[in-house]
């Protein structure tokens, strides 16, 4: 299996700031690849560099063996890249169905027709996709009236309507309840292998449920790429998380705090998460 997406030395500077610094990355076709890292690691920026929304300062982006670095976001989208945004980016005054239809009609090649026409193929596809994200009941509802969770689901339906080969998901579980996150995870797991998924996430439960490979970014550079277990056991990754002042999720489900453990901060420690040497358990903060 050849790599669907290859990044070679991709960098992005903003003046003196190197938001992304020489990132090398391979994503195999059909992979489920997660991108994690503390806040400010450059994950979202990297995402934008891959989708073409932002132009890289240096480096190459290769999609299916073709160099797409110079291509615009539009052209990359036409080559099979789709994405879901961190903050739902939908067509607010339009209905859920219309949103999906916009994506589907472009893919089905109907988007330049100047005459009104009944588009059965598009309609069918829209119904199918809305059904797959459990939004069939809400097809005729304007996005502005949909709940946050519903919008996130719609976001996925829209992305899938593009029949992507590469699906980039930027924090899809953000702001979701446990139940919604569970549904999301199932949905992504159920996606066919024709679609390669790269997902940026903070919710590490989601990451470890979905991902087969994980890349950890820190300060714009790749710290580690490996299996989820590799990442869990890596001291360097722990340091990266410890060093940042942000309280990210733990690497394992949090048990209730044990008051006998002393300092309130250490009550956030996870049981059997990972160890940092002999000093007992440390948690990423």
């Amino acid at each position: 299996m050849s790599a669907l997406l290859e990044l070679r030395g991709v960098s992005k500077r903003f003046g003196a700031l190197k938001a992304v610094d020489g990132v090398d990355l391979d994503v195999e076709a059909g992979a489920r690849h997660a991108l994690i890292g503390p806040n400010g690691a450059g994950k979202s920026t990297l995402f934008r560099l891959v989708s073409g929304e932002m132009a890289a300062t240096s480096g190459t982006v290769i999609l299916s063996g073709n160099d797409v670095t110079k291509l615009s976001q539009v052209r990359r989208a036409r080559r099979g890249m789709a994405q879901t945004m961190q903050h739902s980016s939908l067509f607010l005054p339009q209905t859920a169905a219309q949103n999906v239809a916009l994506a589907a009609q472009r893919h089905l090649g109907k988007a330049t027709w100047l005459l009104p026409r009944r588009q059965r193929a598009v309609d069918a596809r829209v119904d199918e996709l809305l059904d797959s994200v459990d939004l069939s009941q809400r097809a005729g509802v304007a996005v502005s009236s949909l709940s946050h969770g519903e919008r996130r689901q719609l976001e996925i339906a829209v992305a899938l309507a593009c029949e992507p080969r590469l699906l980039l998901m930027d924090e899809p579980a953000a702001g979701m309840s446990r139940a919604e996150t569970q549904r999301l995870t199932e949905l992504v797991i159920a996606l066919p292998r024709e679609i390669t998924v790269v997902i940026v996430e903070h919710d590490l439960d989601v990451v470890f449920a979905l991902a087969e490979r994980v890349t950890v970014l820190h300060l714009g550079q790749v710290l580690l790429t490996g299996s989820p277990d590799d990442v869990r056991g890596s001291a360097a990754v722990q340091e990266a998380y410890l060093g940042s002042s942000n309280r990210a999720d733990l690497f394992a489900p949090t048990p209730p705090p044990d008051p006998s453990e002393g300092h309130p901060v250490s009550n956030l420690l996870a049981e059997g998460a990972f160890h940092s040497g002999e000093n007992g358990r440390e948690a990423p903060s």
Partner: protein
Amino acid sequence: MTSRLPLPRLISLAVLILLAAVPLFLAPFPTDMLARMLIFALLAVSLDLLVGITGLPSLGHAAYFGVGAYTAGLVSMHWTAAAPIPLLAAVVVAALAAGATGWLAVRSHGVFFLMLTLAIGELIQQLAESWSDVTGGDNGLYGIPAVEIGGAPIVLVGYVYWYVLAFAVVGFLVIWAVSRSPFGAALRGIRDNEPRMRSLGYSPFRYKLAGFVIAGAVAGLAGGLLSVQQRLVTPPDLGFTVSALALLAVAVGGAGSLWGPALGAALVVLIRDVYGPDLDGHGTLVLGIVFIVAVYALRNGIAGLASTRFRRRPDRTHTGDPTQGTSATIGSSESSPDGDIDAVDNAPSAKP
């Protein structure tokens, strides 16, 4: 569950029949005024394609209206007045003008687009004033011959009215068809969230330019009809005031609804041209006041009022009902994360 209300269709048909019957029961002056209303309604509807459907607020749309009027006038005077040649020429030349200027204009958004189109409009008006050899300068084109059908000049007001009505309907249908087509859906998508459209693989520039040209062409058609109705074209006909009033008509009528702006335009003509003389020619003052009130009181224009009354049921064909859920205020950039002051649509924006 599907209940496709035939009401709008019935209303449209009834209105059409009523309009067609007008010369049979109205005196010449009101008929002539109604012809003017149709012409400006067509202008406003063509502008709505830009403003309400694509989200491009143009303050220079009268430029293409004027280009069409001058072209039709010149063709009638110097070549032939045989219908529909002057009109066809008007459409073609206006489309070319829209293409040439739109190529630059649609790269900008929001108020920048507003300013650019304002500049374009002023430029074309100055052109009309200074290119006296062709356009007659400040005096304009006067003595435009009546349109001829089968060699016979159409002079009677009633026949002129029918001519105008026929082509106004054609123009309106063109805009209507485009707005309900997949292309029109794409324009709405660009209006509601242009960055998302890019990530879906649409090239916004091409769509906006095509929309701009279509709107300009139909405005040119309206201008050609003006030269038929007025038999005179002067620089103010394509000036800032006409552009501003057209935009006001769209706003008052309800951007995006197409029929709202048509009504808005009829209102403008009513106040300015019909009652204007009674107000010492200061109908524009009343219009300004009406508009100010409308901005506060009618968020979505007259069409906005109507849609809250006759709310439709959800449509089975998801691609077919563009009015469903669209509250197209002129400034509806709520979902656009870029806001509307980004100037030009160039390289991907640098957002860290």
